[in-house]
């Protein structure tokens, strides 16, 4: 499969995530759109790792394996990020009884 198709797919998924972050006010939906962007990047990293493997398989049998390990570490960091982020959203809900991000401008008062 041509690499351009994977790049276009990942760009489209990433931009859908950006639109979600910009156009929605619910903090949880914004958080889910960030996860969507992370997954678009993961998909592109795996596709590039397979592309590099196809090009450099003569130099080493495991060429390109680093890309897939980076995806693994991105998943690890994303799991930690979600646990802390959801805890922050729950705390915000307890204080304001809303998940509307517009309420977060109270931070400046």
């Amino acid at each position: 499969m041509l690499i351009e198709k994977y790049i276009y797919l990942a760009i489209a998924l990433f931009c859908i995530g950006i639109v979600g972050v910009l156009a929605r006010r619910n903090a949880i939906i914004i958080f889910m759109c960030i996860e969507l962007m992370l997954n678009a990047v993961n998909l592109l990293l795996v596709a590039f790792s397979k592309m590099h493997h196809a090009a450099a398989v003569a130099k080493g049998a495991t060429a390109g394996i680093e890309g897939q390990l980076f995806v693994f570490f991105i998943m690890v960091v994303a799991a930690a990020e979600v646990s802390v982020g959801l805890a922050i959203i729950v705390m915000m809900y307890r204080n304001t009884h809303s998940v509307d991000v517009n309420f977060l401008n109270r931070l400046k008062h």
Partner: protein
Amino acid sequence: MDISQVLFYALSAMALGSAIMVVISRNPVHSVLWLIITFFAISGHYILMNAQFLGIVNLIVYAGAIMVLFLFVIMLMNLNAETEPQKNKWLKLAGVVAGGCLLLVLVAALKQAEVKGKVAMLETGDIGLIRNLGKALFTDFVVPFEISSILFLSAMVGAVVIGKK
């Protein structure tokens, strides 16, 4: 057009359609369910590229653990379509236009890129198998792997401290 190309287009359409539904559905629970479908499609892409370990880990960690956490939080807060905060129409339109402009710029930049004719291998290549990934993970990447355990510990402590107040 062989079977792997058909699968590629079907999974891409599934991922894009359900990603759009994540953004436009009113009810947050429906958004979570659509996002789970997106993750299934992306896992399908991984398995199509013979990255079996990442496909399964994506299903277990994202669709299994993280999304269940989101569902728990949404149901705990009793959010639904009626209590959903809405931005005004012009701000939404501005968001969509800004995202569309980014899409346009990225695609236009890619037109000049020298990636033409490069191919990502489908169904072949064994770098995605657990045996090879595990060997690389526990030799070359053993220090980041151990550091990530400290990251998890601190994330767990942080979540408990924030949630306890």
